[in-house]
């Protein structure tokens, strides 16, 4: 039992190290990104534009639900004016980057792992290696870079749509004027809130891209292996994004507190 646990931990560390190596190698290849512009555009289209509708729906509905839940409580304490501040801060600091990450990892990360896994099974990745084309440069780098570019844009969109959803419910259910909602949000939000959210989203993008590409490129077996790679990629990404979010939030809070003091 102890030996099995030990083996599991060693394997997890090895795989984490392998994923990190892939991420570093992919980021080092950015210097030759001009050679992958077609791939980059294709991946941007897939990761960015393809996620807009789903993310808008999810962010908008989340903003509306938050406004409904919070509004009832705040109205009871006569603090309805703070609704804009609460929803604005929640979205810019947490909900925007997290929802963008969850949608992207489920939609794009899983399809990346499955696509690369299928390429491994079909010997396409082996063919690339034999042609002296590094799969990390040719396949992983454009995907990871596309995610790093797309995620802050998606996060900004999620922030805007989420806040708009909240403003709509605040106005229609509690009669809070739109300008008061926006003023309330502006009173609490700082540029740090917004940019820390964008920074988080870029880190999440790197995590999602690296985990998905690593899992895909190390697929073993046939169709079953592809399915397994996809599932494991989603599970690990959810875990790493949440752990990463906790750590980044702690660091950002520590830094902003130090700045205030």
């Amino acid at each position, binding site marked *: 039992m102890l030996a099995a646990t030990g083996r599991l931990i060693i394997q997890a560390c090895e795989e984490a190290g392998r994923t990190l190596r892939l991420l570093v190698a992919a980021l080092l290849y950015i210097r030759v990104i001009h050679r992958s512009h077609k791939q980059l555009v294709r991946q941007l289209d897939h990761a960015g534009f393809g996620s807009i509708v789903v993310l808008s729906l999810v962010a908008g509905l989340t903003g509306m639900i938050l406004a409904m839940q919070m509004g009832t409580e705040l109205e009871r304490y006569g603090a309805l004016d703070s609704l804009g501040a609460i929803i604005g801060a929640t979205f810019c600091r947490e909900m925007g980057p997290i929802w963008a990450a969850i949608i992207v990892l489920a939609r794009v990360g899983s399809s990346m792992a499955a696509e690369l896994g299928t390429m491994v099974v079909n010997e*396409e990745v*082996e063919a*690339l*290696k*034999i*042609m002296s*084309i590094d799969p990390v440069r040719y396949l992983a780098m454009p995907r990871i870079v596309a995610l790093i570019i797309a995620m802050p844009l998606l996060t900004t969109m999620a922030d805007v749509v989420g806040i708009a959803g909240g403003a709509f419910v605040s106005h229609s259910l509690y009669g809070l004027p739109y300008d008061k909602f926006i003023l309330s949000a502006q009173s609490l939000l700082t540029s740090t809130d917004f940019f820390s959210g964008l920074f988080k989203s870029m880190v999440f993008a790197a995590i999602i891209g690296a985990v998905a590409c690593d899992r895909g490129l190390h697929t073993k077996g046939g169709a079953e292996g592809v399915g397994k790679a996809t599932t494991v990629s989603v599970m690990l990404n959810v875990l790493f994004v949440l752990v990463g979010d906790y750590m980044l939030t702690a660091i950002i809070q520590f830094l902003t507190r130090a700045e205030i003091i």
Partner: protein
Amino acid sequence: MTDSQQPLAKEWTKEEMEQAVDMPPVPEDKEIFVRIRNLHKRFGPRHILRGIDLDVYKGETLVVLGVSGSGKSTFFKHLMGTHTIDEGTVEVGGRHLDHLSTDEWGAYRQDLGVIFQMAALLGSLTVLENVGLPLIEVERAPTEEIRERVIEALHRVFLPAEEILSLRPDELSGGMRKRVGIARAIIQNPRLILYDEPTTGLDPVTVSGVNELTLELQKTLGVTSLVITHDMEAAFTIADHIAFLYNGRIVAYGTVDEIRANEHPVLRQLLTGSTTGPLTEDYVK
């Protein structure tokens, strides 16, 4: 009495069946292009290649026959450079594959063409981009030159280049995909071509077409070819020499006629397709 019902002339022990054959002396008019000596490969406790000795003469086609699990693919991957050598030596065109630097691997791979079982074309690329991939990504050749060389390679494999350049692999038939894969393998004028079960999953007419193409390429390009296959007809059509791989060793080697006459019981069972013999003994038990 049919061929498959004939009793074996001699009782072979397991050790005799797994006994590696020595390579014959090199004929005066031949030159060795691929020389493999005492090649071993282990995956954990599994000893897959157990001391392979094999010579491939320059400009010839050698077919490696073997049943599933005999180590054919593992053996091939050493020549592709995707498996490291545990023990032994692999020498191709004067290069020792166990001592190559990254740059030397790059040069070796430019001299190597691999034809995969399922063609291994990239689904997101057109025929032009697939065939021209090594020129685009490795040689970084100008667009016009890439187009010309791709058309030339497609013509060599008897494909209507202009009609299919902009098509994607899923818009091609199985036989055409295979030919496009061959075009990609020969576009850099390799000195060695590896064929991984080139006729698997193709109809008899396309199989004959691929066999003819293999012979044609050997004649026109003068390349050395190594083929792994289960397809006996294909093997006898295209081979100059045949090696039979069994349990990680080359246990029979010779020309087509010598292999046809070979008494090795596993080889005989494979050639006749008999359900009685050492390969199926365990099933009966």
